[in-house]
């Protein structure tokens, strides 16, 4: 069941190409349109920097779950550290403090090879990807998060069967860590419990529906690069179910909901990256490729609800 461990970057890239070709074989849609760019033996890891894509941000699924196919991964908090294997790979301590979920051994030196098949805090064992966001502070004290729910769905308006699995090793960042004012669009936002209405600033939440940071990642890919110099240019958001021609491959729309044990009033919140407007999150895909493909095909392509995240397992109700 576990993915083969790869020893070199080249092997990892071949895996990406293979995985992509496999999962696009039955859709003939987004996969075919980008197939030429990944059929080669070598796939470029890093795209040149360019104008940020998807400045408009995502269109999101809102309201009750159950209307579109999805699978949901619940990952408890793993650890924190001044690591950022996407933005500062190999440079321990250069990053601000991040909270990690998923693969348990993530640090600044982590690459896909070191994550595949390793321990994970996620309730789907093939999910050895890493998810992280800047550490939250309250009155200067670190707030240890509880867990994340990672929703994988076709973005609104996207034909589910056009969605292909994330390529192994793709690195995505939702939100702008340099922002000091409210970010445009809805890539990031704050909410209470399982509510889907986003706030620019953390709202005052009841104890049974505590504070969440909602991050929605890009769902369109250029079909070629796993990353880019600005960490944005290789991916984009769809609009009205359509990916831009520069990023024609439909990926799952990944929405990560980070739960913090914060409720009530009297908080003074900030992030390791700056004020609360600097909210952002990172995703480094190290899912077992077979496991991810299975969930994409069975749940997204078939448009069925494979998992639900709800307030039923939230912080204890009514204990505030």
């Amino acid at each position, binding site marked *: 069941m576990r993915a083969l461990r790869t020893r070199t970057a080249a092997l990892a890239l071949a895996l990406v190409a293979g995985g992509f070709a496999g999962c696009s074989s039955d859709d003939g849609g987004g996969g075919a349109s980008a197939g030429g760019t990944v059929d080669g033996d070598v796939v470029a890891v890093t795209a040149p920097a360019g104008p940020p894509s998807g400045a408009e941000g995502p269109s999101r699924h809102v309201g009750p779950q159950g209307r579109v196919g999805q699978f949901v991964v619940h990952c408890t908090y793993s650890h924190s550290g001044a690591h950022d294997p996407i933005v500062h790979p190999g440079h321990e301590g250069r990053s601000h403090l991040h909270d990690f979920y998923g693969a348990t051994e993530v640090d600044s030196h982590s690459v896909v090879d070191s994550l595949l098949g390793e321990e994970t805090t996620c309730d789907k064992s093939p999910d050895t990807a890493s998810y992280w966001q800047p550490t939250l502070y309250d009155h200067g004290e670190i707030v240890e998060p509880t867990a994340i729910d990672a929703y994988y769905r076709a973005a609104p308006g996207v034909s589910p069967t056009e969605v292909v699995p994330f390529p192994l090793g793709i690195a995505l960042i939702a939100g702008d860590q340099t922002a000091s004012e409210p970010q445009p669009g809805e890539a990031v936002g704050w909410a209470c*419990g399982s509510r889907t209405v986003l706030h620019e600033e953390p709202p005052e939440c009841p104890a*049974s529906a505590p504070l969440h940071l909602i991050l929605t990642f890009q769902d369109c890919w250029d079909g070629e690069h796993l990353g880019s110099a600005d960490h944005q240019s290789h991916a984009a958001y769809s609009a009205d179910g359509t990916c831009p021609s520069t990023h024609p491959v439909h990926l799952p729309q990944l929405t990560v909901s980070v739960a913090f044990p914060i409720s009530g009033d009297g908080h003074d919140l900030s992030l390791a990256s700056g004020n609360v407007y600097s909210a952002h999150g990172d995703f480094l895909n190290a899912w077992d490729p077979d496991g991810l493909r299975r969930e994409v095909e069975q749940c997204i392509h078939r448009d069925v*609800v494979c998992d639900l995240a709800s307030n039923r397992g939230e912080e204890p109700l009514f204990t505030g």
Partner: protein
Amino acid sequence: MTQRTGRIRKWSVSALAAIALLSGAVGCGSDDDGDDAASSTTTSGTEAPDSGGEGTLIRVPQDHDTIQAAVDAASEGSVVLVDAGTYEEAVDVTTPDITIRGVDRNEVILDGGFELENGIRVLDTDGVVVENMTARNYLSNGFFWTGSDRFRGSYLTAYRNGDYGIYAFDAYHGQFDNSYGGGSPDAGFYVGQCYSCDVVIDNVIAEYNGLGYSGTNSGGDLYIINSTFRNNRAGIVPNSGSYELCYPGRSNTIVGNIVHDNNMLDGPGIDVSLIAQGNGILLAGSINNVVERNLVFNHDRTGIAAVPFPEEDASDVPPPESDLEIPCDEIDPPSGDEEIELVLWNATGNRFVGNVIESSGLADMASATLAFTEDDLVTAELNNCFSGNTFTSTAPVDLELLAPCDGEGNGGDFTDGELNLGVLIADLPPTPDKDSYKTTPEPPAQETMPGDVEAPHVHFEAPEKPDVDAITVPAKPSP
């Protein structure tokens, strides 16, 4: 299209504490075998149609090493017959109208090893019958139908699974019978997000779960009959919430069940089950249900109760009564751009008749709500009714006189002896370790499926509507 008539409220957190009923502090009760529930399961169906592959018998491991391979090789009408053994698989089923059958319920074991997610998962695939086998040690569910109609699960055993034992979501025209669900933090049996479901749960046993039965936003021709729910944190708990579609839960028929000793403290349980702790049949925000001729005893809080479910992060408000008969898939979901502070899902319009309830710590029968503003319903307005039950205590007192099902009430005081939900919350039981389901009791050998295991697939169209009127109050099981 849906007119939103519910109110948007903002309440203090402490006030919300009111939902919980006071927790008692006794351990698990009797461990009788409970096998005396009548086996009255019926099915309606026909022999497999004469279309490609019907009648094919595919054996595991003789023809295929794995159940998954056999299921993938099957075609409409096939029977996948699984030989005795332990199968470390998570099987996805996408072949319609097949039967997956074990040769022996207790000897054919799917084992997730606490690594795999679901024993058998049927996805958007109709007519799949699963029979006579066991699924254990899965991170999520033992047997799971999602988006799949015309389903049947019979003579199944599911235990030590991380979410549900036997589970149907957005699935219609189905049946669970002669099955066992134990040791799940959520529910042993669950039917969710369907209206009108057309589902029958008959002659099942649920024990050592957070909830014996749970169903969120489900109902309509949904029958829970002739079954045993014991030693869970709470027994039968239909409920409502706008985090999923098809709210509220409504129109379930709960008849002829034995519900006892649902006070488990040392086993698994999601948070909602802690709030429901110590109750037998608890309608938590579910409406218009029929609860008749059940035998309910030994509960720390209540035997049978209708209570509200407050949802503080609601996505929508309750629909107007005129929308309640609209099928789920014809309801327009809410826009989701409305900030709703809190919705109170009241349990209203429920009918409790002819039940036998005894030995309840707080009240044998109860009807309760929360009222924080003048606009909120009070208990007298819930329109729950009670007649012909055998009991010794109610909350409010004299509930059968206050709210009879036939005729007018006596005009008495609904506040006399009413449950004060606001003060009952303080005694929530401790939160169990999330892995506690992994060590729940292993069930004894369960009754295996009668008949020829090589029998052909029988097309399953829908459950036969049970003759509910013929069901009598079950006899008390031997201690």
